[in-house]
């Protein structure tokens, strides 16, 4: 009796562990090559927010506030520059695909649809909040 149970358990375990079917493979979440830069950017925005708040409640002197704010903005600019650099690199690596998509745009430039950037006229396959080319908001200012 006990031997039977033992065998059953062992077999169940082995089948469970080894019986991986193709459909069981997880579809990995898409990883943006900018993930770590976005993290950094988020952290700097967070720092800016904290700084602004501390200044408003009077924990900081004016000088400290201005200096630190400028530092943070510069760091932010550096991160954004890095983003642009990576982007260029990616485009170069992927051949001409994205620019080609962008080149197609002018033919329909007049059409102000939601897929075309109102600032630089770059066109994308899907709806975006911010332009992937110039970084400006895709939709006209709502407010």
């Amino acid at each position, binding site marked *: 009796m006990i031997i039977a149970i033992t065998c059953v358990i062992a077999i169940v375990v082995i089948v469970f562990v080894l019986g991986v079917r193709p459909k069981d493979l997880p579809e990995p979440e898409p990883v943006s090559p900018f993930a770590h830069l976005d993290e950094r950017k988020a952290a700097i*925005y967070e720092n*800016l*927010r904290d700084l*602004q*708040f501390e200044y408003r409640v009077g924990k900081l002197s004016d000088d400290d506030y201005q200096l630190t704010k*400028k*530092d943070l*903005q*510069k760091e*932010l*600019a*550096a991160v*954004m*520059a890095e983003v642009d650099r990576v982007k260029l690199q990616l485009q170069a690596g992927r051949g001409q695909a994205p620019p080609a998509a962008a080149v197609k745009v002018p033919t329909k430039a007049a059409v102000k649809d939601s897929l075309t950037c109102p600032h630089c006229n770059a066109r994308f396959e899907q709806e975006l909040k911010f332009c992937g080319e110039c*970084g*400006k908001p895709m939709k006209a200012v709502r407010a």
Partner: protein
Amino acid sequence: MPGKMRRFKSSLLILVVAVAALAQTASEKPSVDVRRVGARLQCQCGCKDSVATCSMLECHFSKPAKERIAQMQAVGMNDEQIVQAFVRDYGIAIYLAPPNAFGWIVPYAVAGLGMALCLLFVRKYYKPKPMADLGVIDVDDPELAKYQEQIEKDTANLD
């Protein structure tokens, strides 16, 4: 009747044993003074603890030892004399050294070392002119200016 008597006797016996066990716990809670001296004597019951910390109930060594320490203290012997007396009776193996200077120095030395490491760290990473080598010096610097608009926009709705 005799059965009942025997049961009564045996329960009495259990009671007496229990009471005796309770009674001797009084001496298990030695005074601070006894504990101080006891901490310097190795318990010989095989427990590797000191006389003060031996947790064995009814320990054949630490219990009488604690009583003896208390008696010696009652007649006015100081810590050193009591320890000497025990060493004389049981040999040097019973002696537990008090914490020596080494025990003190090391933690502080490590704290000092940590302090030195911190200072080194500060020296290595401290930049008196933080922006000097970032390549961007002023707000109208082209690099920053390029992103200024984006930054302003994003920071505008910070809270």
